[in-house]
C-alpha cells in the first residue's frame, strides 16, 4: 500500500522515459504481477537494445551451485536453446562474477559483428569467454532486496548499446529483476501465518539471544519461548532454529 502511495506521489510516472533514455523509475517499479508480464517488460528492453533473444536467470548465492537457474526467456513458456546451454553447461565464470561484481559482461565469437564493436566501446563492461552457441551477448547482474542475485542476458549480433545508455538499461534490468524476485518471495510465502510474538522470538534468536534470554526479555517462561520457536520452525518448514532464522531472513519476515 505504501509503495502504491509513493508511486502516486511521483509526478513523472506518466511519461515512459526522461531525455536521458532512462526508463522513469516510478513506472518501472510497478510490480510486475506475473511472469508473462515480466517477460513482456524484458522484451521491451530487448527491443531497445535490438537484441535477438533474452533470458532472466537466478544465481544461487552459495558457491555450491554453479548453474544459473532459468526463470523465463524469449520463448516462454518453452525455453530457448541458449537457456538450455546456460543452465546445463557449467557457466561458472558468469555465476562467479555475478556474485562479486556488478559490472556487465559481454562475449562475442564474431569480431566483425556490430554487437562486438558496440560492446568493446563500453568501458565499464568486461569481456569474458564466449558463452553458449549464440554469437554475441551481454549479461547484466542484478540484485534484489532480500539478497537474491540474478542475471538478465541479451543475445544477438546486432545489439546497439552506447556507454551513455548503459546505466539506464542496467537500471531497468535491476527493476525487472527485483519485481520478479518479489514475485517469487510471495509465491513461497504460502506458509501458515506466523504470529507477531513468534516473529519477535525469531528476531531475537537471529540477534544471538538464547531461549532463556528471550524469555527474560519478553517476560515469558522459557517453555513458552521454546514453544514459539518450535511453532515458527514448523510453520517455515525448517528443520531447526538456524534454518528457521535463515529462512525468516531470506523471506523478509524478519530484518
Amino acid at each position, binding site marked *: 500500500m*505504501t509503495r502504491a502511495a*509513493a508511486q502516486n506521489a*511521483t509526478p*513523472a510516472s506518466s511519461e515512459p522515459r*526522461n*531525455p*536521458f533514455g*532512462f526508463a*522513469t*523509475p*516510478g513506472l*518501472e*517499479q510497478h510490480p510486475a504481477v506475473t511472469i508473462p508480464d515480466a517477460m513482456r517488460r524484458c522484451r521491451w528492453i530487448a527491443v531497445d537494445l535490438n537484441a535477438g533473444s533474452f533470458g532472466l536467470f537466478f544465481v544461487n*548465492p*552459495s*558457491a*555450491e551451485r554453479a548453474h544459473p537457474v532459468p526463470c523465463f526467456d524469449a520463448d516462454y513458456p518453452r525455453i530457448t536453446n541458449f537457456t538450455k546451454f546456460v543452465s546445463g553447461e557449467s557457466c561458472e565464470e558468469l555465476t562467479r562474477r*555475478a*556474485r*562479486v*561484481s*556488478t*559490472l556487465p559482461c559481454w562475449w562475442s565469437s564474431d569480431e566483425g559483428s556490430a554487437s562486438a564493436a558496440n560492446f568493446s566501446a563500453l*568501458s*565499464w563492461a568486461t569481456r569474458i569467454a564466449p558463452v553458449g552457441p549464440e554469437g554475441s551477448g551481454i549479461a547484466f*547482474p542484478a*540484485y534484489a*532486496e532480500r*539478497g537474491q*542475485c540474478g542475471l538478465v542476458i541479451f543475445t544477438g549480433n546486432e545489439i546497439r548499446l552506447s*556507454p*551513455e545508455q*548503459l*546505466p*539506464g538499461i*542496467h*537500471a*531497468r*534490468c*535491476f*527493476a*525487472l529483476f*527485483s519485481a520478479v524476485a518479489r514475485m517469487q518471495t510471495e509465491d513461497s510465502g504460502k506458509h501458515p501465518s506466523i504470529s507477531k510474538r513468534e516473529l519477535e522470538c525469531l528476531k531475537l*534468536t*537471529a*540477534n*544471538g*539471544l*538464547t531461549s532463556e534470554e528471550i524469555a527474560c526479555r519478553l517476560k515469558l517462561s522459557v517453555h513458552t519461548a521454546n514453544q514459539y520457536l518450535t511453532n515458527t520452525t514448523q510453520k517455515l518448514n*525448517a*528443520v*531447526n*532454529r*538456524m*534454518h528457521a*532464522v*535463515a529462512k525468516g*531472513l*531470506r523471506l523478509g519476515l524478519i530484518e
Partner: protein
Amino acid sequence: MEIDSGHPEPPNCMAMTSLAVENSSFETTAAKPATRGDLTAFLMEQTDAVGADAYMLVAVVHDQDHSDARIIASNWIYDAIQLAGQKLIATLAQSSFAASPGGMPRAIVTASAPSLEGIGGEDIKLLDVLGHSEIYALKLFVGRQRLFLLFSAASIARIDLAALIQAQFQCCYGLSRMSEVLGAAVMQDPLSDRERECLFWVSEGKTTDEVAVILGVSSNTVNSYITHAIRKFSASNRAMAVATAIRSGII
C-alpha cells in the same frame, strides 16, 4: 588515474541537463579506481557530477538490537560525523528514502525534520546546521555486497536527479572493479571459503555431522570452522553468525 587533471571544467549544475556534459563526465569517470586514494578521488568526481558537496560511503552492520554504520569513505567533517552519530547515519542510509538501483531517489530535506524510523526529527535537523540541507541516499550493489552512498548539498534542489542515477551505477561499477583489484579491502567478508561453505550448510539446517559428510571432512574440523566464523563475526552463537552472514549478503 590522474587526479589533478580530472576536472577540466568546474562542476556546473546548470549544464548538467545537457547530454554533451553527461557524455564527457562518463568518459572521465571511466578511469578505474585501484587504491583507497583513487576511491576518494573517484567518489569526489561523482559528487561533483551530481552537484553535491559531500559524500559518504557506508556499510551497515547489524548488531544485537541496532544497526551501525561502518564508514568506508567520506568527506564529511569529523565533527558532523560525531554529532550525527553512527545510528543516525545508518538510519539515513536504510530509510525508505534510499533508492535501489532502478528506483527513483528521493531527497531528505533535513530542515523540515522528517521523522525517520526510530530517529526524532530534531536529530536530523541538526544536519541542516552542519551543511547537509539536502541528502540523497542511494543503495549500491557491489556484487551481492550492499553498500550505501549518501550525497548531500548545503542548499536545496542543487543535486541533479538524472546525474544521480548515472552516479549510482558508476559507483556500483567502479566499486566492483575496485573490489576485483583490492580483494577484500572494501568488502566485509571476513570468512574463508571453507568457513563460508560450512556456515551456508548450517543455514540450510544441516547438523555438524551432516556438514562433515557433505564436505568430506571430520566433524571436529567443521566445528572449528564454524567457531572461527562465530568469532570473526563476534557473534554469540551459531544462529547469530548465520543471521549476520545473511544480512551482509555473504551467504
